[in-house]
């Protein structure tokens, strides 16, 4: 084991936090989507890294599924964002506030 697993944890945590940060500060729906992708990747990093550490393939398999699901999610997301764009003329999430309270 060349690199201590803790580093991977730190890396993934960093990526996760950056993703979360992106969600919190950006109002563009697409950036929101991308940030989510980052967060999912952070999970993947963990899974793959510790798949190696634990010596089983479970993590890798799950990571695979996650990649697939992320893709599907993006597909749905893009669709929704496009419809949003058509209805609100923008993809700024702060504009879509017809329903509140």
């Amino acid at each position, binding site marked *: 084991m060349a690199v201590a697993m803790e580093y991977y944890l730190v890396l993934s945590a960093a990526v996760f936090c950056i993703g*979360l940060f992106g*969600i*919190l500060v*950006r109002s563009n729906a697409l950036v929101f989507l991308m940030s989510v992708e980052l967060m999912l990747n952070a999970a993947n990093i963990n899974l793959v890294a510790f798949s190696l550490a634990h010596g089983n393939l479970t993590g890798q398999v799950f990571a695979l599924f996650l990649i697939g699901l992320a893709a599907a999610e993006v597909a749905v997301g893009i669709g929704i964002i496009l419809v949003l764009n058509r209805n609100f003329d923008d993809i700024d*999430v702060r504009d*879509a*506030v017809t329903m*509140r309270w």
Partner: protein
Amino acid sequence: MVDVFTLAPAIALFPLFAFGIALFLGSKMPKGGALAGIAATGGSLVLSLWMVAEIAGGAGPYHEELYTFVGGVEGEGVTLTFGLLIDPLSALMLVIVSLISFLVHVFSLGYMNDEGETGLPRYYAGLGLFTFSMLAFVYSDNLLMAFMFFELVGLCSYLLIGFWFRERAPASAAKKAFLVTRFGDYFFLIGVVAIFATFGTTAFAGEESFVTAAEAVLGGEGEMNTFLGLGNQAWITVLGLLVLGGVIGKSAQFPLHTWLPDAMEGPTPVSALIHAATMVAAGVYLVARMYGFYALSPTALGIIALIGGFTAFVAATMALVKQELKQVLAYSTISQYGYMMLALGGGGYVAGVFHLTTHAVFKALLFLGAGSVIIAMHHNENMWDMGGLKDRMPVTYWTFLAGSLALAGIFPFAGFWSKDEVLYETLLHGLGDSPLLLVGFAFGLLAVILTAFYTIRMVLLTFHGDPRTDVAEDPEPVRWNVKFPLVVLGVLAVVAGALNLGTIKDVIGEENLFLHEWLDGATLDGELGEGGALSAHHYEELLETQAGYEAAEFSALANGAIALVLALVGVAAAWYLYRGTDPEPHMTKLGGVRRVLAHNYYQDEYQVWLATGLALPVARVANKFDQGIIDGFVDAAGTASVVAGERFRRIQTGVVTNYAALLALGLVLLLLVFGLAGGWF
């Protein structure tokens, strides 16, 4: 031969039937149900007289449990029953009540029917229900039953005072009458409940009675519950005083007398029956009924005597200045019941009952006479509008005069004998070892003068002199149905004193005091206790042993002479002031004193103030408090929730980024809390 006593319940039930008939069928009957009432009360009178005859014939007092009202659990809980107790006292009272009721029914034919009143079925139903309740009260064998019918009597009084409910005054008077007596009955009810709790029974007579039990306890045998840490004697006094509350209310004693004058708003026959002869007597009768209990408590007796004496005097002063005929009679009624209370409190059991009897007769007479005058005067009651009626309605005048002289205590009318005996007994015991009674006696003596004065004033103003108005000039004639009761009662007012010629007992001998003999236990034995627990004789013993009353030596004749002289002084004064054809309204000369008297010492005012000036504002404050604070709290909880809801709603800003932020914040908070708790860092 049928045992007459088994018919006893019918004495009260007859009028009850009359009530039902009058209420539901009265409108279809001639005379609006009066005939049923007359027949029923006549029947009651006959039966009552039969009872008297039977008892006089030596039959023992009769006691029977009629009906279990509320049964107790086996071995536990008290049983509430109805029963009847026919002893000399109640038999006498039954006769009085049914007699007066009978006469009043007859009189009502003239007073109500001939006057074309509407609502007669209601009127006769009321009379019937009243007679029923009163008779049932009289023959009650226990305090609870007595209380119940006592209350029913109050209801009837309410209904009858408010007979002319379409006018405001009778409705108001009815309310006041019920409310004031209710206030007294409140204490009475406490008393009844307390007696239940103390003795487990409220029976008046017999081995099991509370009277006997209390006597036994004070005699050192047996025991009883006491409450609030009081001793036996003190508790018995408390019980007696509680019951006395009802007595004071019903018998219109100071300070609960205020309802009676107002009650004159009712039809005059009603005043005669209820507010003079019978219902008001219920209070005094009740004291007599449980005299064996009161005799155990000198304190209670003293209070009774003082209240009685004071009431006799104060009410008499108020009667001095009244201008309405019935008002004078009302205050005189209060005053006379004061005498009875004085007698009972002063140890004069027989005297009290005697005065009760004579007063019933002559006061009913006076009221009916007043009713006759009122018919004649087209319902104008102001004496200053009358005058000169003597010649125009002689029957009324002479009977009324007889009643008046009896009231004034002039020899040889009935009132003289009884009032004299009242004073005599009080004096005897007062001189004995109870100086407190002398105070009552003094009040009584003063009241004698005043009574004579206002009575004669009343007679003079009404019947003598010249007619002061056109109506008095040509009064409406009255018929036989008015005159007949007047004559009957007039005769009785003259001769009733013969029952008990106590003043001249040294002359005629003790054994010829019929009433004394009648009420005495010497003739009684049987189930109601050894030696006649209900006898006057027994009461005297009790008074001596328990209350410490001792009879001093004093000449009955001398006392009678004093009373008569004082009464004559009053008569003379009235005669001097109001004789002649056109008397002056002398009372106006009294100035401020008159005002105080005319306002009845502001008794009404303060009682009205208690209701409207104290209770009502307090109630309003309570209502404000309820609406504002208690309900306000409930509503505030609701409002606060809604406001909180409004706040919680605002969390949902609609901006998805904020949601993400809050979500993350929540997660971080959880992380911090549980991280710290779980030692992750």
